[in-house]
């Protein structure tokens, strides 16, 4: 046995697993989305793209995903920056604060939001008591509920992406900017933010992709009335078994994600996906 054989043998189980349980299923799904009773067809795609109901779902998915990503970046950047500035003990606690929700099942976290946002839940009750909203105010089954829940689910991904970049940043760059007369906020804007950009981009891609393709949180917090694309796919598979249509929607979802991903990656030349 030579070195090459040894390495081939090491990689082989993984290659086989991916071929059989990853690439073949994806290929099958692609084929199914283009297949009808009489061979090749675009009918499922045409049905989706000509129906204003489904176009509305697509638009909502894109709109909410962009909003969720933007909010995650707006909170995640200062949070990650503060994490690099505090002492080691406090940093450990902040890392726990980010990792603990990240590693908790999405179903469990969504349940927490269902309790908090429900009609008699803590959040609407407080808002009512403080006089911000009227008596009939409801949060559950609204797009706001989806955004709140999804930001909590995805914020850890954004924070960790940015943290990874910021911890490798040379702290002397900031000092240099300060000694040259930059104020604190100027330093953030002209030095830290540009250096953190690869992390923000990587985190945004992750958040957008995960947000556009998640259905557990939108389904439970938005209800069946406010559907997103992934929830619609789930329904096409479970409620009305229409596999070609489900497959076509999945292809549309992935094409949409690629449409956002590719220019982003080209633009930054970043290798992070």
């Amino acid at each position, binding site marked *: 046995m030579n070195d090459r054989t040894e390495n081939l043998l090491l990689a082989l189980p993984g290659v086989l697993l991916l071929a059989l*349980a990853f690439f073949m299923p994806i290929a099958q*799904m692609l084929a199914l989305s283009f297949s009808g009773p009489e061979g090749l067809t675009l009918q499922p795609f045409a049905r989706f793209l000509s129906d204003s109901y489904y176009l509305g779902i697509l638009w909502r998915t894109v709109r909410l995903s962009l909003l969720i990503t933007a909010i995650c970046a707006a909170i995640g950047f200062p949070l990650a920056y503060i994490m690099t500035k505090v002492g080691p003990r406090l940093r450990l606690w902040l890392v726990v604060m980010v990792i603990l929700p990240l590693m908790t*099942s999405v179903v469990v976290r969504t349940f927490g939001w269902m309790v908090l946002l429900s009609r008699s839940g803590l959040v609407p009750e407080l808002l009512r008591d403080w006089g911000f909203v009227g008596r009939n105010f409801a949060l559950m089954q609204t797009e706001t509920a989806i955004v709140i829940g999804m930001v909590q689910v995805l914020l850890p991904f954004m924070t960790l992406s940015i943290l990874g970049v910021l911890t490798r940043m040379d702290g002397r760059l900031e000092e240099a900017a300060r000694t040259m007369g930059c104020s604190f906020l100027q330093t953030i804007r002209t030095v830290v933010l540009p250096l953190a950009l690869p992390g923000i981009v990587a985190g945004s891609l992750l958040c957008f992709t995960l947000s556009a393709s998640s259905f557990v949180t939108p389904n439970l917090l938005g209800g069946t009335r406010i559907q997103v694309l992934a929830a619609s796919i789930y329904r096409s598979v479970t409620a009305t078994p229409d596999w070609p249509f489900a497959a076509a929607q999945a292809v549309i979802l992935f094409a949409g994600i690629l449409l956002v991903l590719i220019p982003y990656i080209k633009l930054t030349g970043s290798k992070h996906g």
Partner: protein
Amino acid sequence: MVRAIPLGLRAAGVIFVALTALFLLAPLIVVVGVSVSESQFIAFPPDGLSLRWYQQVLSSDAYLGAGWISLQIAVLVTVMATLIGGSAAIAIHRRQLPFSELLATLFLSPLVLPTIIYAIGMLMFWSAAFGPVTPAVLALSHTVVALPYVVRTTLAVLSESDPYLEQAARTMGANRLQRLWFVVVPQCLPGLAAGAFFAFNISFDEAVLSLFLRGPTLTTLPVQIYGQLEFSPDPSVAAVSTIMIALTVALIAIIDRMLGLTKFASS
């Protein structure tokens, strides 16, 4: 250190971090709170204190059965993903295969594809070609999703290892298997351990694949919870969820002891 950050900004920073902590942890705190409530209904803040919902969960066949399936699958996934991903990472790291760049991309590709798309593909492929989904198939699909994490953590550790150790072992007369087992694998251990924790956690908490690939006798814990939430949430769901949160806390504590959480998080 940067000095003279304006006092107002410091105060704003403290308030910001406190609010973010509250936001991130609120759903978990609420779930734990509901689980110890005495009330029949989901109530937060909890009315009274009682462990009756835990008692109910521990005598519920549905929850115990789902928990047992989840645990079995998670253990199987951890073993498979760590073995397969770890050995693949070693092969990729050595860069002796003509297509090792492609191989690296190949092994990381399940990260890029949204799970829901993979889930439909797997469901259609498997039920068309082989029939109903079994626990082994579900474990296989979890392994595919967990694999990139193991490959990534192992590659990260290997890239900081000493490349000459293996050559040294070779000149000392160690054969292939000995070099692999006594030189390379020990170097990989922190990465393999991190990957194994990821794999267990991903599998145990995974809801999307499990929802698509479920069957009448194949319900994992997250799927069971999801079903309860959709139809009839009661405080016993909170008790199960709290047990899952406790498991996560334990896992994080172990990771911190073994690998150092701060390093783990920013890698």
